[in-house]
């Protein structure tokens, strides 16, 4: 079983602050982490390998420091890693990113299952996984919460939908995006970390994956960002105390005087 995991290094948005004057992220001192949803993808890849054998390759596109995300994947049990990095890729939107990743996967050649997190916590688009499948012209199963069965030729997986579950069967190769309900990611081991530290991680540029020009980076990105703004800050709430009738009266009065009702 040849497994590919696509991961992304993201700022740890749980600790991020926004400069209220400029509406931009305060990047100083913000730690970079592997996108949490991708950690579930890595874990599922390792579990698949434990079940079926094979090899796992982790793939990321990003600046040179994204290499540390790949080392983390290696420390958990991924066998090989490739960094796709070059100035020419800068400014990629989800279209260009998924095109670039798909081109790298074609270069790797043989693959049975591609795993991605359902979305990244910085962009939140959930488009890159499905985009990769589209560019490779292979089936995709998104929002997977359980892999029920996998054989040499097919896979059956349970999707988590808003109003229930859907069980899909697909031939291989297939691309899956996973949700956090699928597993509990393991911690790295010391041996894994030592192996990861020494691992050789090749860096691929446009020429390595036969892409270029208008296909990649900003030029290959049809998305136009009109405006970026931080969500409006909410003031603190107000609690009306006393017995229910009294509190409701106060609430209605407040809403009326604010011309909200």
């Amino acid at each position: 079983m040849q497994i590919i995991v696509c991961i992304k290094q993201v700022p740890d948005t749980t600790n991020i602050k926004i400069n209220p004057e400029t509406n931009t992220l305060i990047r100083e001192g913000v730690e970079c982490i592997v996108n949490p949803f991708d950690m579930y993808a890595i874990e599922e890849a390792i579990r698949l390998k434990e079940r079926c054998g094979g090899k796992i390759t982790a793939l990321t596109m990003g600046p040179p420091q994204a290499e540390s995300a790949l080392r983390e994947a290696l420390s958990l049990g991924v066998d090989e890693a490739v960094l796709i990095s070059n100035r020419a890729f800068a400014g990629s939107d989800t279209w260009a990113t998924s095109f670039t990743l798909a081109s790298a996967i074609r270069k790797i050649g043989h693959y049975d299952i591609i795993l991605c997190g359902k979305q990244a916590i910085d962009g939140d688009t959930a488009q890159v996984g499905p985009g990769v499948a589209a560019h490779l012209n292979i089936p995709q199963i998104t929002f997977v919460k359980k892999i029920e069965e996998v054989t040499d030729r097919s896979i059956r997986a349970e999707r988590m939908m808003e109003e229930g579950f859907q069980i899909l069967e697909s031939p291989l190769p297939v691309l899956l995006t996973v949700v956090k309900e699928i597993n509990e990611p393991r911690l790295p081991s010391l041996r894994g970390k030592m192996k990861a530290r020494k691992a050789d991680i090749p860096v691929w540029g446009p020429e390595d994956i036969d892409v270029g020009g208008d296909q990649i980076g900003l030029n290959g990105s049809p998305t136009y960002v009109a405006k970026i703004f931080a969500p409006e800050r909410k003031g603190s709430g107000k609690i009306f105390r006393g017995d229910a009738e009294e509190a409701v009266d106060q609430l209605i009065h407040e809403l009326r005087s604010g011309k909200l009702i």
Partner: protein
Amino acid sequence: MKYSLTEEQEMIRDLCRIVADEKIRPVAAKYDEEQTFPWDVVKAMGDADLFGIFIPEEYGGLGGGVMELCIAVEELSKACGGIALALAGTALASFPIILFGSEEQKRKYLPDIAAGKKLAAFALTEPNAGSDAAAIQTSAVRDGDCYVLNGTKQWITNAGEAEIYTVFAVTNRSKGSRGATAFLLEKGMSGFDFGKKENKLGVRASATGEIILRDCRVPKENVLGREGLGFLIAMKTFDQSRPGVAAQALGIAQGALDEAVFYARERVQFGKPISSFQGLQFMLADMATEIEAARALVYQTARAIDAGEKNIAKESAMCKVFASDVAMKVTINAVQVLGGYGYMKDYPVEKMMRDAKITQIYEGTNEIQRGIIAANLIKEYARKKK
């Protein structure tokens, strides 16, 4: 302070921090309350290769030394001094094998310990032999290819949970301290049973219990070193392991300081955070200073041991005494900083205070340690010419 750790040592610290944050801290209060053995956490520690840190590479370990072990124990103890004992207790029982075991014994026992498959326990203390370890009553009588062991061991860390036991027994009473021998026992040997499980003030996530030996037949191949070396093995083991207890104390102290400073910055009284009051600031400053001094002493001693320093009993005792006394003082003050909240079980500092106490008592009480320090000190001066 930076201690010029190697890349591997930093890696151990980082990984132990992750294990502490994700696996230990969320369950520390639960295991303290229930006083049950935290097998799920111990398994996670094993999966992270933590039990291999101090074991040579040729026996499946990562080839680290006392320093690496201290870093791990310190980091885990910040979250729970009791759970960290599963590792420290296993290390204590493994040192005799590493230091004095035959090639065959090392091959048989160390790889499973390194892989986290089996825990180990060190069994010296008896009801009437604590500080006076030479007073042990457990006997071992040679009978053909076996020794027959009889006696009771008490307050044994990891008892019942461990598979491998380093047990000390008297083989020749007339020889006094040269009449004891160390044996490797395995759980399940006939005549090897467990007695009372202790109900403790602190380190309640650690198993502490009694071992009862009734005509327990142990093959002669399981003698560590040779007959009569028991006390030497115990003492040399303690020289290596005392920095580990010191590291446990250090971790507990650091964990308490972390809680105290965090709380002091948040808690508002008289319209200001209590960290703005000088009386409290001085207390925090002393806590931090003493912890840093303890850390410097523990690390330096651990490094000296790893560098092959032979005469280390004095420094080893010093770091155990100092770090454990600091831990007691710091945790008491941490409770004071948190005030009424610190006294409640909703906050972790009262547990840290309870956990700290044992570090002044076990692996040689601090009074015994001071005796060791003084004896070595006086001996050193006796050799010097004025």
